[in-house]
């Protein structure tokens, strides 16, 4: 059995375990796109192996289609994760803010696309060039979006729930390794070296799957004490929002009044 086959079998087993686990934990309700993405990954891994074994001539077409859909799903996962991180402050955002997030990520992708074009090796066919560029764009985009989310949540002090953090950790790790490998690929390592690097990406994906299986089988950290005193503390402090806004409102009205009469 080759290393590729071992990695493939392990990945399919881990994906199957994870899909069953996420289904049991009702993750479909909280992170539906992530769940669909994993189901898609499982289906394409099985289908890809079967097509390669029985209809090898159809494999390039399958790979092309799979990669395009995979990219769309990765984009959707990023939007879902970003929107999920904003859950604590969603009420203070406009209802359709997720569209804004999607547009921002798409815009980042459009900016990355030409940059990724500079790194495509010259010897590839036109389809190969396109695929390589798409792969690189998404490798860079994932890292850019994760960094953006981390920096944004740090500046505004938005907390991450454990599950979101676990999903982001797995994806972030896989994304950084993928980016490192695509950078190495641009320097035109040939033959075996090129393939070793692909195996590194597969191994990092497997590690992310293993981490998710471990995380989702582990119980969420037990709750700490939250006494009625603590609750009334928050009640009192939280009540300032209205006061603060009304004070500001009064200030703005007072400040604008002379202009209104002009």
């Amino acid at each position, binding site marked *: 059995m080759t290393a590729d086959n071992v990695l493939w079998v392990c990945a399919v087993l881990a994906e199957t375990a994870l899909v069953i686990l996420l289904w049991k934990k009702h993750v479909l309700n909280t992170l539906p796109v992530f769940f669909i993405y994993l189901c898609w990954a499982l289906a394409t891994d099985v289908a890809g192996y079967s097509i390669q074994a029985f209809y090898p001539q159809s494999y390039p077409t399958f790979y092309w289609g799979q990669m395009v859909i995979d990219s769309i799903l990765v984009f959707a996962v990023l939007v879902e994760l970003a929107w999920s991180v904003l859950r604590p402050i969603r009420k203070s955002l406009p209802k359709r803010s997720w569209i804004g997030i999607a547009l921002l990520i798409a815009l980042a992708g459009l900016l990355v696309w030409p940059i990724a074009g500079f790194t495509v090796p010259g010897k590839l066919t036109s389809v190969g060039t396109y695929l390589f560029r798409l792969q690189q764009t998404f490798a860079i985009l994932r890292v850019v979006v*994760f960094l953006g989310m981390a920096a944004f949540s740090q500046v*505004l002090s938005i*907390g*991450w729930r454990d599950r979101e953090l676990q999903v982001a950790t797995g994806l972030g790790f896989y994304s950084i390794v993928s980016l490192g490998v695509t*950078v190495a690929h641009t320097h035109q390592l040939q033959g075996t070296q090129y393939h070793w690097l692909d195996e590194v990406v597969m191994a990092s994906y497997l590690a992310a799957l293993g981490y998710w299986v471990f995380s989702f089988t582990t119980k969420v950290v037990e709750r700490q004490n939250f006494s009625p005193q603590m609750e009334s503390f928050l009640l009192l*402090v939280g009540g300032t929002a209205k006061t603060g806004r009304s004070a500001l409102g009064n200030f703005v009205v007072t400040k604008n009044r002379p202009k209104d009469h002009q």
Partner: protein
Amino acid sequence: MILISLQIAAIVCLGVYFFRWRSGVRRRNAQSWDSLLARLRPDWSARELSDQFLWKEGLNATPQDAWQRMEGPKGLWVMYQNAQTMMEMADYAARNSETVDRLLLETLRSDAMQIRVCVLMALAQYGFSKASEGVRINAFRAATMYTGMAARMTQLLQENNPMMVPNFVAAM
């Protein structure tokens, strides 16, 4: 060779940042209530902003006065950090209680975030134009919400733990 080394170094730096950020979030999620309270910074006081600071909400100063009384960027930065602690308190409540009013938590987060946004805007503007009208208005907005929070904290301590009030008042 130099190019690939630089690229790999940049990716390693990203990995380190990602790891550190993740550790920070995990640490934050594991904090106790006492450690959160202890993180409220007492090294700058907002008492100059109001004659009845800690006892009554609202400011009795104009944006111009408030800017001078809060010692400019120093006061803004303390408000920024204390607002972060307030956000973390709201997260703590959300994680550890099922009965706490969710709307209240959202209001609290929104309030603390508004303070942080106002402070960041004021500091950014200050970097370019020093204490202009816009800087002072943003600082005033942040200070109004901040003094309200502080006044309510005092009221709460008075009701629930009067022994702590003198220390709290001294600290604020």
